[in-house]
């Protein structure tokens, strides 16, 4: 592999031209191109062939047994479990409302045209978690009570991810501000909290939340597994957010603090009106990266027996019926789960990269 060797390319003027020239610029490069092209030429068509052409789309389960392609029948058959878990059928419109709201909120926050995104975000952090809890949990007038043990599927992933995000943002901000405090006790608390939470991996932290947390609460308190997991997620990702916020606060030049002080602003007003607005613009890409991490981390809850999006698919595969019907369902299940996570995470990381570039250009 001849790295960094760029023999003088002919002036083709276009990026496509430069790309094509780079593939054949030397004999070694041409050989490499040929090998890679042969591999890609074999794999890509066979993937398309497997996922689309030879796939089984409709029919009974038995159609999949001798399938040489994907078995989309499996996804169709398990569709309601994958989306709603064990949520009662009559109440599923509430989950649909949640999905709709998440899509609208996502579109508002990610769109380039919408203004006042900070305000929308703040509103979401403050209002969305309790509103979602009321909507999904119910127990108030007109809404039947649905215990979290019946939650599952994509709905559980969205609820857990959303609560973790909404909870860890303020947690992280407070921790980061405390870490910059002049008061040694407060700074010490923040440092210990952040380092401990970043040093313990998520899985032991989940076990801790499952087995030890209930012991620390008054006897008779019944915290559902999902709530315990949410506490662990908020703390764990709060520490990660704190480090991102810290980087942003450090990037603000000292002159900004001094200028604000010379204008007579108090310390809290300096923070709220001068420093934070600049810092948040800097840290938004980093925060989005933590959001990607949260989406990926939600899969870990299957270790303690919760049925999130991925675990519902696995549960479908473990069903003796589908277990007997061969490899097609297995491959399709993993392919579908991977595709969904990839689309969400890749989309978010693209947005993050775009914002980072925009911040850099602004200077």
């Amino acid at each position, binding site marked *: *592999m*001849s*790295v*960094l*060797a760029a023999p003088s390319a002919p002036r083709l003027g276009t990026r496509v031209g*430069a*790309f*094509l020239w*780079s*593939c054949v*610029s*030397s004999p070694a*490069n041409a050989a*490499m*191109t040929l090998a*890679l092209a042969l591999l*890609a030429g074999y794999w890509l068509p066979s993937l398309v062939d497997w996922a689309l052409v030879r796939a089984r789309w409709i029919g009974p389960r038995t159609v999949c047994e001798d399938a040489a392609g994907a078995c989309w029948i499996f996804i169709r058959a398990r569709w309601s479990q994958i989306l709603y878990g064990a949520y009662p059928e009559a109440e599923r419109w509430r989950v649909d409302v949640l999905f709709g709201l998440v899509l609208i909120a996502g579109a508002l926050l990610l769109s380039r045209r919408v203004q006042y995104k900070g305000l929308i975000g703040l509103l979401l952090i403050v209002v969305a978690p309790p509103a979602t809890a009321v909507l999904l949990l119910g127990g108030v007038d007109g809404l039947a009570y649905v215990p979290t043990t019946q939650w599952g599927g994509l709905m559980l992933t969205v609820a857990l991810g959303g609560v973790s995000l909404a909870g860890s943002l303020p947690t992280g901000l407070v921790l980061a501000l405390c870490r910059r405090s*002049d*008061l*040694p*006790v*407060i700074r010490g*608390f923040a440092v210990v909290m952040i*380092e*401990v939470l*970043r*040093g*313990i*991996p*998520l*899985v*032991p*932290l989940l*076990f*801790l939340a499952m*087995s*030890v947390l209930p*012991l*620390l609460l*008054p*006897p008779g308190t019944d915290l559902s597994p999902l709530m315990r997991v949410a506490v662990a997620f908020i703390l764990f990702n709060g520490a990660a957010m704190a480090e991102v916020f810290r980087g942003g606060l450090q990037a603000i030049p000292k002159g900004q603090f001094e200028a604000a002080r010379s204008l007579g602003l108090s310390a809290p007003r300096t923070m709220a009106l001068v420093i934070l607005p600049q810092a948040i613009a800097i840290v938004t890409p980093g925060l989005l990266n933590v959001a*990607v991490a949260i*989406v*990926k*981390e939600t*899969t*870990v809850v*299957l*270790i303690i027996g919760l049925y999130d999006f*991925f675990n519902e698919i*696995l549960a479908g595969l473990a069903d003796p019926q589908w277990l007997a019907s061969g*490899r097609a369902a*297995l491959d399709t299940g*993993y392919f579908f789960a*991977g595709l969904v*996570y*990839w689309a969400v*995470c*890749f989309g978010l*990381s693209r947005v993050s990269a775009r914002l980072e570039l925009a911040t850099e250009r602004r200077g």
Partner: protein
Amino acid sequence: MRQAEAHSSASRFWAGRRLAAGGAQAAVLAAAALVVWFAASNAAANLGRLGINTGFGFLGRPAGFAISQHLVDYSESSTYLRALEVAVLNTVVLALVAIVGATVIGFALGFARRSSNGLMRAVAAGYVELLRNVPLLLQLFFWYFAILRPLPPPRQSLSLLGAIFLNGRGLVLPRPEAAEGFGLVIAALGIGAVLAAAMACWLRRRRARLGRAPSPWVAAALPLIAMPALAAVIAGPPVAWDLPRLRGFNFEGGLVVLPEFVAMAVALSLYSAAYIAEIVRAGIDAVSRGQVEAARALGLRPATINAKIVVPQALRVIVPPLGNEYLRLFRNTTLAAAIGYPDLTLIFAGTAVNQTAQAVEVMLIVCGCYLAINLAVSAGINGYNRRIGRSYR
């Protein structure tokens, strides 16, 4: 007079600030103490109500469960302390193997992303974007449940050169064992190393004085290879390979690696490699373009430019984030609990908690272990960063 007044008002102001600061800190301390007291009294009440023992006495008692992979002697009658040792070793071995794999693949990918070949760059970028954006647990399950477990039974193993076998029960490798020549070859290796160091030193000085002499590296490698080779000829081979043989329905001899270990090592290596590739790419980008152009103007070959100009300078940028990536990989080994590889989390946070019911003590041990290893490594990284920072200033 006025000055004194001003001074006293200033000192009163600062005294007021100090008082407020002291008050705030005292309030935080008091709140923390209250939370701890609340949690501790609840814990005491709950433990009493449930009739759970307290203390670390259980560590001396027999564990009573088997562990499918142990690098030191372990049986069901061994103590919990011994089980802890086994579990920590399992975690560390997995992390080390995965770190080696991730580093090799990651560096190759990082250079591929800056290759002169556009298609190569595109393929490497595709790998990074694919692996980074799919949850590690999903990848792990894919390798374990979709690839390794459906492999055929031992009798129809996939085999490489008749010595390495892969089947549904794991990976079977030849096991190295010390043979009669072992002591002499090791001794020869030691002497060879000393000789090589001396020779390299001498050649380097000679080269500096005369401007020409054989490369110290090539010349120094000679005794390092020749001495042990000579010893092996005289005393016989240092290592005998215990080859696995198929007997009945399973393999006999050899080194059997659990399929859980293989799945973990593969998934962790491939996943972390995507992140390491990005770190390496950033390191290459940090080497200024002029350096490469100057080297090219001097007529150095591309491989030499990489080895002597780009890599040494890029490494300074690469090493600190690389250390953090290793730590992340280490923390990710805890996903082993999901497929049943006996690591620290599964054995202690899982099995030991269920058996002893002493969740508080066991989880303290588990979290303490992870925290200690993590803090030790990150202290090392910070030390390195400080040294680099100083040497640059």
